[in-house]
C-alpha cells in the first residue's frame, strides 16, 4: 500500500513537470493550429536563465521564476514575430517545418562554447532541500521542492484560467482561436492576440524550466528539452490538443502511468506513453477533453 502511495507521489511530481510544458503546446496549437516544436527549447532557455541568474547574481527564488518567465516570454514573442508571423497565411506545413528549424537552431546555437556550452552543470539549491515524512506508519516522504512545485503550478493554473475566461484579452484569445477572420472583422487585433498567446505559453515554459532545475538539480546540455518536450506534447495530444484543462489532465495521466509502468518493468516507462497515446487516439481521436471541430470548406 505505502509502495503504491509513494509511487503516486512520484507520478504527480513528474506530471506537474509535464503540465506547464503541455499548456504551452496546447495554447499555441489552439490559436494558430501550429505545433510549436521550439517550445521545448524555450523551456531549456528557461532552465539556463534560472541557472545563470541564481549562480551569478544570487537572485532569490521567487525572482528567479519571474526573470525566467520574462526572458522566455520575450524570446517566445520574438520567435513568433520573426519565424511564424511571415508564414501565417502560407500552407500550415511551412510553419511546422519552420518550427522544427527554430528548435534545431536554438539547441545547436546554445550548445556552442561561447553560449552555454555542451557540458553538464549542477543547478544551485534555490531553497535548502528538506524532506518530510508524511503518514509516519507508512514512511512516505515528500520534499519541500515537490510542495513548492505544486504550489507554483497551482498558482499559475488559477491565474491562467482567470486570464482566459474572465478578462478581455482572454475573450479575444478565445475568439481568435474560434475564427480568425470573424474575430478580426469584429475589431480584434489578431496579430497582437496571437503574440500575447505566445507570450503566456512561453512564460509558462520558463516557469517550468525553473521547477525542472530545482527538482533535478542538474542541467545536462542544451538538448535537455527534447525528452520532456516530447512527453509534454504527447500529454497535450492525449488531453485533446487545443484544450487547456485537457493538457493538465493529460500531463498527470502521463506522469502517473509512466511511474507505475516503470515500477512494473523498468523498460516500459517511455513505451507506455505511446501506448496510452495510441489507445486514446483510437477510442477518442480528438483526445480526452478535445472537441470535434467542423472543418469549413
Amino acid at each position: 500500500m505505502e509502495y503504491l502511495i509513494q509511487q503516486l507521489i512520484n507520478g504527480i511530481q513528474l506530471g506537474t513537470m509535464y503540465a506547464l510544458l503541455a499548456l504551452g503546446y496546447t495554447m499555441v496549437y489552439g490559436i494558430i493550429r501550429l505545433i510549436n516544436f521550439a517550445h521545448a527549447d524555450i523551456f531549456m532557455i528557461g532552465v539556463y536563465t534560472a541557472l545563470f541568474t541564481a549562480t551569478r547574481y544570487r537572485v532569490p527564488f521567487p525572482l528567479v521564476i519571474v526573470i525566467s518567465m520574462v526572458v522566455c516570454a520575450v524570446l517566445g514573442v520574438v520567435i513568433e514575430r520573426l519565424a511564424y508571423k511571415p508564414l501565417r497565411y502560407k500552407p500550415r506545413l511551412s510553419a511546422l517545418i519552420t518550427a522544427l528549424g527554430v528548435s534545431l537552431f536554438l539547441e545547436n546555437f546554445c550548445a556552442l562554447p561561447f553560449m552555454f556550452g555542451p557540458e553538464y552543470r549542477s543547478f544551485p539549491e534555490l531553497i535548502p532541500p528538506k524532506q518530510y515524512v508524511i503518514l509516519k506508519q507508512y514512511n512516505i516522504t515528500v520534499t519541500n521542492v515537490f510542495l513548492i512545485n505544486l504550489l507554483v503550478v497551482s498558482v499559475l493554473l488559477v491565474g491562467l484560467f482567470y486570464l482566459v475566461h474572465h478578462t478581455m484579452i482572454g475573450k479575444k484569445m478565445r475568439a481568435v482561436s474560434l475564427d480568425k477572420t470573424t474575430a478580426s472583422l469584429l475589431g480584434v487585433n489578431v496579430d497582437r492576440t496571437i503574440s500575447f498567446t505566445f507570450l503566456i505559453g512561453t512564460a509558462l515554459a520558463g516557469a517550468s524550466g525553473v521547477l525542472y532545475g530545482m527538482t533535478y538539480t542538474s542541467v545536462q546540455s542544451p538538448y535537455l528539452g527534447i525528452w520532456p518536450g516530447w512527453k509534454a506534447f504527447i500529454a497535450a495530444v492525449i488531453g485533446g490538443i487545443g484544450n487547456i484543462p485537457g493538457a493538465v489532465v493529460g500531463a498527470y495521466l502521463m506522469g502517473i502511468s509512466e511511474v507505475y509502468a516503470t515500477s512494473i518493468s523498468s523498460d516500459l516507462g517511455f513505451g507506455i506513453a505511446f501506448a496510452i497515446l495510441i489507445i486514446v487516439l483510437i477510442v477518442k481521436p480528438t483526445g480526452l477533453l478535445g472537441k470535434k471541430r467542423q472543418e469549413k470548406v
Partner: protein
Amino acid sequence: MKKFLIIFFIFLVFAIVFMSCNKKPQEIRIGGIFPITGAAATFGKSSQEGMQIAVDEFNQKGGIPISGNKMLINPVYDDTAGQPEQAANVCRKQIDQNGVKAIVGAVMSKNSLAIAPICQSKGIVMISSASTNPEVTLKGDHIFRVCFIDPFQGTVMARYVFNELDFTKAAVLYDNGNDYNKGLAHFFEEEFKRLGGEIVASEAFTDEEKTVDFKAQLTKIKAAEPEFLYLPNYYAADALIMKQARELAMEIPAGGGDGWDSPKLTEIGGDAVEGCVFSNHFSKENPSPQVQNFVTKYREQYGKDPDALASLAYDAAYVLLSAIEKSGSTAGADIRDSLKNMNMEGATGKISFDENRNPIKSAVILQIKDGQQKYLTTVNP
C-alpha cells in the same frame, strides 16, 4: 565574369586538396578519439590532456626514429560526443583523411565497440584507454586496452561489499542502453550470488543522458530493503540517483565503478554521495614513482590533479608510442606485435597484455569523504 570566378574557385579548392594530400609527412600522426562533449565530457577532456602529456614526453626527446629519420608525434583529436555513430565517423575520418598510424580511444565502451571493427579492418592498432567491456578487444587482434575489464571491476566490488562491508543483500540500478553499465551490473550480480549474497532488486532505466527521474525504480528498490545499492553508471546519473534516493529516505550505503571518477559527482550529488565507495584504476595518493612523475607533470601543465581517465590515456599513449619506438615501424602489424611483448610500469600500475590483449593489473577502492576521493585499499586480480 561570375562563371570565371566560380571555375577559378573550384580549381583553388582542388589545388588545396591535392597539395595537402601530396605533402610528405615528416611526422607520425596518432589519433585520439574521446567524448569531449556530452554526458561524459569531463572524461574526454581528461583523456585528451593525459594523452598530450605522453606525446609531449616523446617529442621532447626529439621524436621517434623511424628508419633513420626522427619523426615528431602529431596527435589528432576528435570528439565522439558519447555517440557511437559519431565515433565511427571520426574514426574513418582519422584513418582515411588524416592518415593516423594508430588510435588511442575511445573512452566509453559503446563508442569503442563502434570503432574497433573499423580499426581492425583497416589494420590500424587501436588502444582503448578506458573501455572496460570485455567485447571490445575481442573485435580483433589489433585492438588493445590498458584498463581492467568489467568482469574484474564488477567482481572486485561484489567481493568488497560481501567480504569487507559484510552485506548480504544488494540492489542494482543501471542503464540498460549502455554496454558498460550492463557489464558491470551483470558481473557484480553474478559474483555476489556466487559468494552467497542475495540480489533483492535489479532495476534498469534507458539512456542515462536523458533520464532525470529515477524515483519509480528507487521506490521499488526501497521496498525490497537492500543493504547496499550498486550503481554502475556514469557520474551524472549516479549523483542524481543518490540525491533522489536520499529524498526517499533511503539511507543505505552505495557504490559504483570507475564511471564515478569525476569532480562533478560531488558537485551534483553533494551530501548525498558522501561515504559512497567505488572501484577505480588509479589513485593520485599512490606513492609509486611512475604515478608521482605523471602527477607532477600533469599539475605543471594544467594546474590541477589528474584523474583516472587522464592517467589511463597517458598510459595508453605511452605504451603505444613505446611500442612504435621499439619496433621502429609505423605499420599496423609491427606495432601490434611489439605491443604484445610490452611490459612496462605506468601511472595505473604494471602493464602487460594477456592473449585477449587485456592488461593484467590491480584495482583500487576509493571512498568519497568530505567531497574528496580517499584511497581505501588495493584489490589484486
